[in-house]
């Protein structure tokens, strides 16, 4: 057995200002070169454990702390935070907020510069990391224009550049699509081959199957189970579900829906508008380009004249250079009313653009929605639809849940407000400040305000990224309930598990085109 590199000795911790203890009397030991998965529900202490090892606790987040953490022979408590930089590297969950630089080059050399290496050595390390991870084409770019997956790659590279012995990953895949996750798994595999000690806290388990040596299951601040990697992978689906974990193996068909490029277009004949009866929500003429000068109206007219009978899947007949600069091109799409429809596709392939256009946020988009025999275009689309954003904090404006609902109503109707809140299980939080609620509750407040505004089509942008299994299931059930109540739900997602849980139909978008619908 190889030597021990991290030792956690009878550690209890509780954040300042919070009542419940987060970790209670944990003792763990990690050996050099092993890859360990930390799993468990949200709030079980995974992130806290990561912070204990990289020294953010107690140096950045303070709280009540007892016990002793030793990393690579140093007591964390007595070591300054910056001395840990070359020993422990951390990849965080949110790609938006873990960058110090605004450009990729600066980010990779940021760590080595901080620890005061000579410029020549730093450049050598950068070369090495860049060639190892094959990210040459990302150099010299602004971090703000990269996709989530590319950002996470740069995050891995900048951690690599410090050559740490120990690498911690805190829910690194939360915002990534299937392809980007494979790249992430590749980075982890490379580190493993280099003999680094890797600790991953994660909800999405399927991509780690072949990488992990050991699995720790945390519950309420304690380690409840421990398996070897093989034992863990051989757990039955039911056992995994009972532990409230996301599936380790996901069904083949969902993976193939994310990867397979050709099969589904032929299968996608089903995308033809089946029957255009009253029970459909029909989107027509959805064309959009980020180029402000693009003649959208002209293209719309052109397509309208030449290609009347086009269905959801085929490319309309119009000049090629026009088609290429159309970021969204959906001549006609007929959706079932009152269903949950999953919208899938890779990062940066137009899912968000699609949702933004459907709900009318992109003013220049020419599309028209027909529902219940009425036609909505332009600003009317905003009234018919409501999008729950990925970062729901952006759409809560007031100081209480009640006020949030009232804000959406034309006349403040207390009874209806109570009704809506009751249905969403929010009645007891009526007077609370929305920002004091948990993530899932905030999401429901946003939905409450959408219902109060009378929205018939609800759009969700990645509602389950970073959620554990139980919360994901809650969201799934809620989407189903909303659909039963008559709303049409469009939900964009990277979670195959969510598709399996609640989606009646699936739309796949690629390059702004609907390539599959069933």
């Amino acid at each position, binding site marked *: 057995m190889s030597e021990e590199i991290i030792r956690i000795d009878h550690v209890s911790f509780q954040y300042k200002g919070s009542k419940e203890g987060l970790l209670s009397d944990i003792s763990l030991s990690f050996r050099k070169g092993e890859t360990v998965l930390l799993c468990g529900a949200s709030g079980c202490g995974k992130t806290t454990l990561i912070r204990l090892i990289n020294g953010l606790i107690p140096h950045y987040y303070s709280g009540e702390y007892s016990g002793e953490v030793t990393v690579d022979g140093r007591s964390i408590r007595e070591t300054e935070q910056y001395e840990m930089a070359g020993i422990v590297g951390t990849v965080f969950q949110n790609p938006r907020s873990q960058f110090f630089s605004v450009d990729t080059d600066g980010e990779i050399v940021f760590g080595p510069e901080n620890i005061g290496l000579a410029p020549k050595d730093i450049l050598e390390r950068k070369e090495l990391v860049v060639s190892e991870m094959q990210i040459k084409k990302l150099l010299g770019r602004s971090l703000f224009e990269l996709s989530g997956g590319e950002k996470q790659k740069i995050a891995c590279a900048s951690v690599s550049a410090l050559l740490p012995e120990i690498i911690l990953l805190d829910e690194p895949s939360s915002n990534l699509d299937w392809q980007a996750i494979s790249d992430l798994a590749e980075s982890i595999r490379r580190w493993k081959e280099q003999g680094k000690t890797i600790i991953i806290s994660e909800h999405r388990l399927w991509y780690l199957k072949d990488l992990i040596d050991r699995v720790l299951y945390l519950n309420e601040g304690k380690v409840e189970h421990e398996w070897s990697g093989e034992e863990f992978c051989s757990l039955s689906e039911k056992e995994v579900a009972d532990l409230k974990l996301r599936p380790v193996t996901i069904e083949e068909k969902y993976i193939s829906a994310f990867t397979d490029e050709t099969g589904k277009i032929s299968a996608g004949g089903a995308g033809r508008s089946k029957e255009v009866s009253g029970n459909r929500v029909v989107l027509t003429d959805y064309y959009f380009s980020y180029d402000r000068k693009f003649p959208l109206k002209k293209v719309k007219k052109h397509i309208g004249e030449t290609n009347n009978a086009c269905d959801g899947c085929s490319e309309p007949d119009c000049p090629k250079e026009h088609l290429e600069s159309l970021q969204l091109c959906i001549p006609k799409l007929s959706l079932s009313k009152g269903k949950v429809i999953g919208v899938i596709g890779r990062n940066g392939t137009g899912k968000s653009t699609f949702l933004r256009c459907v709900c009318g946020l992109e003013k220049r988009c020419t599309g028209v929605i027909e529902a219940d025999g009425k036609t909505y275009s332009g600003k009317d689309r905003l009234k018919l639809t409501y999008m729950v954003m990925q970062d729901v904090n*952006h759409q809560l404006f007031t100081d209480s849940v009640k006020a949030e609902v009232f804000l959406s109503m034309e006349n403040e109707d207390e009874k209806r407000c109570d009704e809506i809140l009751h249905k969403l299980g929010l009645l007891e939080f009526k007077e609370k400040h929305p920002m004091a609620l948990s993530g899932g509750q905030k999401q429901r407040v946003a939905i409450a305000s959408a219902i109060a505004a009378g929205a018939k089509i609800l759009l969700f942008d990645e509602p389950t990224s970073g959620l554990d299994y139980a919360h994901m299931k809650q969201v799934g059930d809620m989407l189903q309930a909303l659909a039963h109540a008559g709303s049409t739900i469009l939900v964009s997602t990277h979670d195959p598990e969510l598709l399996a849980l609640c989606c009646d139909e699936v739309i796949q978008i690629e390059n702004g085109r609907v390539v599959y619908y069933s």
Partner: protein
Amino acid sequence: MRLDPRTKLYMILIVSAVVLMTATTPFLWGVRILMTMVPIALLFLEKRYASAVRFLVFYGVALALTFFFLSEESSGILTAILIGYCGIVVQFLPAMITAWYVVRTTKIDEFMSAMQRMHVPDGITISLAVVMRFFPTIKEEYMAIRDAMKMRGIMFGGGNALKMIEFRMIPLLFSCVNIGDELSAAAITRGLGGKGKRTSVVELKLHIQDWCLIFLFTVAAGIFVAGKYFL
């Protein structure tokens, strides 16, 4: 053309000093306008045509209005507003153009390296760098919030100006605080704020164009001060 960040900072310093002094003679106006044209020309060289043209037109129109259409005898409320408006633009736009040029064309690591070379304490350098890093983030967050407001139909706060500001500021503050917190955590795990001396891979060297510009701005400022106070 690449300029050393130190030259850029020097330009900001000089232009800011000059905009605080009023030009009194046509000759002094000439010097001021010349100094304003330099950052605009630099923006053109950096291929930032849109902003360069915008600044040029804005500044040009304000200048033309001030000199050819407005005089001390003008009267009427509209003219008064116009005089005030043009006065401010003509007076302070040069500093804004320079600052815009510097912020848009300086990379954060270049900036940090320059500050270190000038022996500015790390505390100040890092705070300023974080401010620069935060501009694009604030913009992103602000756009998202504006979208959310559009969806709710509360762009104008129900006609209440105070609400209009409140609805924008509250979510913005919350998300900026959160992002700032995560950002700092990520930065310190990578060794920011250590006691050792920070190094930089950016090699800074004052090239011929830097010396030319420094010379030009020094002379221009000298002429301006001399022309205004001593001649």
